[in-house]
């Protein structure tokens, strides 16, 4: 039985079905996946239950997904969210 994976900034992250993206990243030793809009500071999980919005990242091209809530799926493409996550549309 092979373990499912998703990609995170190009590397493969294993997960167990039922785990959130944030839980799988934490289990893999990744602690941050966002840089803040102003100071560019790293952020990861804080409240763990969808309240604080610190854990935002990009899932399959969609920014502002909460890593603590979004369940991991095989083949998902997850990436670090820089600023607003809208690339050069950033205001």
């Amino acid at each position, binding site marked *: 039985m092979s373990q499912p994976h998703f990609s995170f900034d190009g590397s493969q992250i294993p997960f*167990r079905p039922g*785990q959130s993206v*944030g*839980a*799988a990243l934490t289990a893999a030793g990744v602690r941050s996946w966002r840089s803040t809009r102003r*100071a560019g500071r790293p*952020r990861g999980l*804080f409240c763990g*239950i969808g309240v*604080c919005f610190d854990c935002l990242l990009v899932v399959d091209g969609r920014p502002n997904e909460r890593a603590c809530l979004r369940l991991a799926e095989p083949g998902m493409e997850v990436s670090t969210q820089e600023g607003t996550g809208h690339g050069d549309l950033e205001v």
Partner: protein
Amino acid sequence: MTSKSERMFDVLVVGAGPAGLAAATSATRAGARTAIVDAGVAPGGQYWRHPAPSEDGVSAAEVAHLHHGLATYHRLVAGLRAVAQFSEHHVWTVTRDTDGFVVHVIDRTGGGERAVELRSRRLILAPGAYDRQIPFPGWDLPGVMTAGGVQALLKGHGVVAGPRVLVAGTGPFLLPVAAGLSESGANVLGVHEAASPLAWLSELGAVIRNVNKLGEGASYARMLARHRIPVHTRSVVVSAHGTDAVERVTTMRLDRKGRVVSGSERTIAVDVLAVGWGFTPQLELPLALGCATRVDVDGSLVCEVDDEQRSSVEGVFVAGEACGVGGAALATVEGEIAGTVAAGASSVAPRLRRSRAALRRFAQAMHRSHPVPAGWVDRLSDNTTVCRCEEVSFGALRSMQQDLDAHDGRSAKMLTRAGMGYCQARTCGYAVGCILGQEASRTSGFAERPVSSPLTLGALAASSPTERA
């Protein structure tokens, strides 16, 4: 699409934590057509948080040892057989209708977002609470997490937040967090509890009436002793240090008045700091409906309810942490009363009233014994982040007060953007209120939110409620 009549319920419960589960099972037992709606993937709320159901994934059995009172949980879930259950359904607002309420829901099953409306004659709101936080230098470093969040990772996903964890803040909840982590293989470096070990001595009356609760606490204490986890009372984490994640924390002792003792600094290497200062009730939905509120012993804004869990708004009941933080046992009793009365039963068992009274006394004693120690504002430096979303520093709030003579919540939002970010001041609301020198929870504009969660424009457009609260 089901028709309107099929979606009309007698009682609709928001929240499937201890309070909501008890409310729904009692309402259905009393013969009401009942629905229960929860944003989470499995019933249980925070206390009985369960992993998302899956094949070969993290199983409920695997996390069972972290739970208390699972027999009650299973009994309540079994009681939902005739109840319409909506999980992964987020209620973003509630409006009134001629014959009751319209509950506006975003259905997030399967990853998408679809707008749904449910109708009900009566509502029971049991939305629970989230960890209360106070800022300190370094609290925005990755690896600093809420105590509840660390617990949620463990119970809901089977993941230990990191190898070396220090648990800090105040309240009996810190003990199960430390015990669970340790049982699951983490190296728990210690529990730093700000309160004095003697605080409970003046609350013996409440304690004696709640020997069961004491038993739960004692079992955690034994577990901590077995794992040789030191519990430091009158100790606080004053700062966290690291470059891109927390690497060390500094703790200090508190004197009898709750002030830090100079020279008592200790620096400890950690991977994770789990910190919590009690809980803040989620009041968006009751506030949107205009339910009357009051400030509880712990300084939190809570919903005012009568003896039968009725709010000030006709047809709206509130149960659980939203009408006063008091733990799962109290939430369950309040839910049972609310469900019974909302379903139209004429009387509530005296046993329930007695147990609610005793548990409320216990909760009040707990709040008095575990206050947020004063003086934390003095430990902030100008560049300490207060609002994490908008990256507003303590210095920015101070200069607003000094230079512009503005001291209220609304000005703080307009002038500094504190509380204006994605979380809508859920995280910084209490702290900003204290910094501005107002009774935290009364700070105007910090507890009320137009919607209970940010939505995509598409989902909003698709739902277009006829009447907004």
